[in-house]
């Protein structure tokens, strides 16, 4: 490697090296130090078309779910005589087999799903990242952790869920545990990949030769540079988490009716699919919107935050 072309070719995205003044980039857009630049990169992601669409959908869903008790103060269990009806002015999404309003139940179902995501995904993300980074402190521990993650990875998502349900019994907590464990290898591997990549970087080596301790190197140099891919991974994993909830609930091993969740609504809805195809419409649409919002956000973040 002797001249600049080499390094630029290797590091830059596949465009031909456009001529840049070697002496200095004349006027770098003024940036203030600290977290501001990071925050701004993320804000930029939310301004892309995908980011805007994803964020809007998510905001509407989240707001509806949070405000559900205000919007529908009567709760999700109010029965009427009109069972399995289609859409009408009074029941926008129709009614279920007990005459309960399906719009209300779908919104409360979404609430359940959010409550699972909010607990399980960050839990998995933090634990998985920590496990993946263990290798920075001790090589042996890192190798052992990787083996354990390999074992978890051997279990297809639903099968892992089945095992957890067998031990804990079906319900909210089993779902949270199943999702959190299922995500461990996913985040662990991502963190480890980032770790290995960063360990090879010269600034990490430079810090090590200065005598900066392992913990400080991890905290100051490796973690900040590993956080972006893990956040993108987190957004993608929300989609997986929603699928696991719905999947397990559909086969009756997740949220148990009459508590509504997107999956448990589908579980019952399938039984009445011939009489009332309308039944599954609400939960299906919300599920797709929810997962789409997160995958759009992941795309937006991936494009603006990571490709830098």
């Amino acid at each position, binding site marked *: 490697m002797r001249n600049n072309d080499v390094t630029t070719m290797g590091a830059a995205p596949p465009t031909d090296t456009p001529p840049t003044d070697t002496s200095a980039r004349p006027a770098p857009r003024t940036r203030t130090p600290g977290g501001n630049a990071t925050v701004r990169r993320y804000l930029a992601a939310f301004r892309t078309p995908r980011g805007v669409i994803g964020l809007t959908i998510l905001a509407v869903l989240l707001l509806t779910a949070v405000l559900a008790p205000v919007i529908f103060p009567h709760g999700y269990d109010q029965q009427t005589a009109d069972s399995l009806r289609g859409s009408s002015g009074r029941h926008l999404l129709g009614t279920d087999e007990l005459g309960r309003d399906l719009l209300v139940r779908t919104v409360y179902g979404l609430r359940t799903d959010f409550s699972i995501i909010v607990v399980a995904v960050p839990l998995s993300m933090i634990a998985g990242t920590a496990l993946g980074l263990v290798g920075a402190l001790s090589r042996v521990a890192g190798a052992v952790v990787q*083996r354990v993650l390999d*074992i978890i990875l051997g279990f297809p998502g639903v099968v892992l869920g089945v095992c957890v349900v067998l031990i804990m019994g079906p319900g909210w907590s089993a779902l949270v545990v199943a999702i959190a464990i299922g995500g461990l290898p996913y985040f662990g591997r991502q963190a480890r990949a980032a770790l290995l990549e960063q360990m090879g970087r010269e600034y990490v080596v430079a810090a090590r030769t200065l005598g900066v301790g392992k913990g400080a190197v991890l905290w100051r140099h490796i973690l900040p540079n590993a956080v972006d891919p893990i956040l993108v991974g987190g957004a993608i994993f929300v989609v997986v988490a929603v699928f696991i909830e719905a999947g397990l609930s559909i086969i009756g091993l997740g949220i148990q009716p009459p508590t509504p969740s997107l999956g448990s609504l589908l579980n019952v809805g399938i039984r009445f699919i011939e009489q009332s195809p309308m039944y599954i419409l609400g939960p299906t649409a919300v599920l*797709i919107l929810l997962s*789409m919002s997160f*995958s759009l956000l992941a795309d937006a973040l991936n494009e603006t935050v990571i490709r830098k």
Partner: protein
Amino acid sequence: MLRFLVKKLPSILLVLFATSIIAFLLPRFAPGDPAQTIAGPDATAEQTEAIRQSLGLDRPLFVQYLTWLGGVLRGHLGTSYIFNRSVSDLILSRMESTIELAVLASVFMILIGIGLGVLGGSTRSRPGRMAVDTANTLLLATPAFLVGLLLIVLLGVTWRLLPVSGEVPLSENPEIGIQYLLLPALALGLAHAPSISRLLQTTMRSTRGEEFVDLARAKGASPRRITFRHVLRTSLGAAVVAIGIRVGELFGGAIIIEAIFARNGLGQLAVQSVNARDYQLVQILVMGAVLVAVLSQLVTELILAALDPRVRLDA
């Protein structure tokens, strides 16, 4: 190639070994008396005692494990006390349905995944890319069971083109059987396709920036030739690895699809056994699922080695 296999063997054995421990411990983790748990809620005191005897539940855990594993390895998969049949019988009778589903779904998944991936990885035009990206995003946001439900509502309930509930084994009547199989397999395959196509697409796009693609252009190779001979050929490895992981997941996903389409396969058997707490059966099914997942990953690594001389010759 053999060396490559031997190198992979320890980690595979480790996963299988760990799985066997987890499967073994499942009934013992559950609250209550394992013998009672295994026998099921309707068992008499004598039956429970008989189980305690035959499984050696009064002996140390370690000995129990060895006895159990030894039995499984010799093909004694045990008896389901709830179905009152031997576990191997039960599994064999349900196997065809699930294998048919998984195989056809894999075919759909691979065809659609690679097709979309190549399309997305080779389209230069903006609208073309947008179309492929949108299709991918939509498919990614739609899990197998939703694709299944939509197919049921559209083709089974609204237009009634294909049967959506039940099954006919292909071995009995291929013509009718395929009609029953088509929708569930499509649902399962379609939902798993985008993760393959996305990976292939990104790999192809970044491969396009490699210098050997420039060299191919400088040789005078046509865009078509570059896409297939150079870009796709070198990117395929990534797709193959993704396929390997997906095939394992696909078997897991079959549990839900079988429930939706009312197919009596291993997935339904698994659900029934979990609901009935039939641990003898669950243990074997869990191990089977992991075995399939691990084997499919191994097979893809072998394919990868065959595709990429760097992997093959350096191993």
